[in-house]
């Protein structure tokens, strides 16, 4: 399926959902707009132009990439690893704490693109954690979560 057709349909579905939610909170009228007025109008514009996009893509004679070509030959697995590690980091941050979790995250991320020796990654991760702790926690007074280590 052409990319613009897929994305156009997606935005059309989103627009319908937003219209329904806006109607729920009261759209009001042109004379007296309610809380749902602006999102409703914006969703109408989104859905309308989504339809235009789909029609334009269907009628275009030029070849357009399919979704499989978007990731062909690229390191998409690295993207998945980065996202998974960031999501885990965000969820565990309050309980595990900044120091331990950031060290683990940096250790993982420094080896994503290339694989330097383990001790190089270890030292770099350690320096990163200590330097950012000094700058953000000590100097800029950012309240980083303590978690397992009380600092």
């Amino acid at each position, binding site marked *: 399926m052409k*990319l*613009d057709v*897929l*994305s156009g349909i997606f*935005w059309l579905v*989103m627009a319908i959902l*937003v219209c329904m*939610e806006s109607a729920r*909170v*009261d759209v009001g009228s*042109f*004379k*007296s*707009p*309610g*809380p749902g*007025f*602006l*999102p409703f109008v*914006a*969703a109408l*514009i*989104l859905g309308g*132009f*989504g339809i*235009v*996009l789909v029609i*334009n893509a269907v*009628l275009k004679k030029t070849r357009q990439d399919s979704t499989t070509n*978007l990731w062909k030959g*690229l*390191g998409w697995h*690295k*993207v998945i690893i*980065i*996202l998974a590690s*960031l*999501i885990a980091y*965000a*969820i565990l*941050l*309050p309980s595990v704490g900044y120091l331990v979790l*950031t060290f683990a*995250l*940096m250790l993982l*991320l*420094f080896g*994503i*693109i*290339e694989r*330097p020796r383990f001790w190089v990654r270890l030292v*770099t991760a350690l320096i*990163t954690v200590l330097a*950012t702790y000094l700058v*953000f926690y000590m100097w*800029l007074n*950012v*309240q*980083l*979560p303590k978690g397992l280590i009380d600092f």
Partner: protein
Amino acid sequence: MDILHSLFYGFSICIQPDNLLFCFVGVLVGTLVGVLPGIGPIGAISILLPATFRMSPISAIIMLAGIYYGAMYGGSTTSILVNIPGEAASVVTCLDGYEMAKKGKAGSALGMAAFGSFIAGTLGLIGLVFFAAPLAAFGLKFGPPEYFGVILLGLSLVTYLSHGSVIKAIMMAAVGLILSCIGLDHIQASPRMTFNVMQLWDGIDMVPLAMGLFGVSEILVSVEEAAKPEILKTKIRNLFPTMADWMKAKGAIARGSILGFFMGVLPGGGATIASLLSYSVEKRISKEPETFGKGAIEGVAGPEAANNSATAGAFVPFLTLGIPPNVLMAVLFGALVMHGIRPGPFLLVKHPDVFWGLVSSMYVGNVMLLILNIPLIPLWVQVLRIPYRILFPLILLFCVIGSYSLKNSNFDVLVMITFGIIGYLFRKFDYEGAPLILAFVLGPILELNLRQSLILSKGDFSVFFVRPISAVAICVALLLLILPLVSFLVGLAKERSAGA
């Protein structure tokens, strides 16, 4: 004389030691961010924004503004030496700057970019000073209908002048408006699209949205492509342009400064469009257009002057009318509001220290940048050699800390990651994030002014069309929104008749 007195007042504020320090930090970080591909000034401002909460508003805006125009200086370094623009406004500099570097004239190119930027930045500031007060006075005549009209026009222009598909840009602006409505309604306090998630009652914060959409997504794309930039192995000497260089470039700098300033003032304009336009103009009027793309110094001087002058121009509607004309100004707008200062016609009256302190600091910042850029270019070249495998985790970590530190909440980090995924998919499916974030920032003001206008006129919609400023603005905005539809229908009709 009034302007002179105000400028001296501004200088007295900006040369205070803490403001000078923050100005220096801002331009240094801006240059660094401009040099390093992978993080732009929007990402840098978003990351440093939470750190400014403990500063005074003046110091904060001085530093954040320094990042903005500092990035314009830094971006040219990678364009000339690596053929990769450090940020979007330096794309055009690659065309002739890199060719000059290949011919052993990297020093001339870098020097002309720095001096041209300084001259244009200074001229832009003069324009800002002279336009600001009359425009602020004009802005006092603005009521809710005028604000609604001008903001709608600004959003329409941003979508119309977008790089890619106008239809997609309009859709992104609509998405931005929808996202801005998430949370409690400002007038009736009804929860909208919160889905019973308490953290969404305050809406989505701009900082994690911007960091995710621009910073995290950029990293994901760069890691996936694993491109390794090759730095040109050339000796950088003679950073001071020769007399012959100045004779060739003086016209380009002057034209770029004027063009850039007005493109910066225009909503939807900005540094990128200014630099592209300047290049087109210089090539068109040149007596030797065949030299463009092969190392013409006008092709470096003009665009670099334009992008710096545009940054000064962008502050005009931002400070005097409270309308950010482009994405970066939208982020700065959010930053000032977080500090309790509302840009607009009353800024000159209520907070003259912020206005004149900022304007004066921009001049001081330009001087600092000239001093930083000329002798420190070899240092920036070394910075470029930092392996990306070390750089991207650091940038991600700064994004995470920046998002977390807003409200000490990991929810904002998850929001950032979500928009990082969205931004990454946008790049795959060829959508732009700029109209989205501009609409996101302007959405609440647009809605407030719409509803206030209708309350004042007791529901009479004609209030937007009987007042000349709002009438003209709304008509032009509607025209710009309808034009893509018209061209689509005309194209459809042509294809049908060709098929028949």
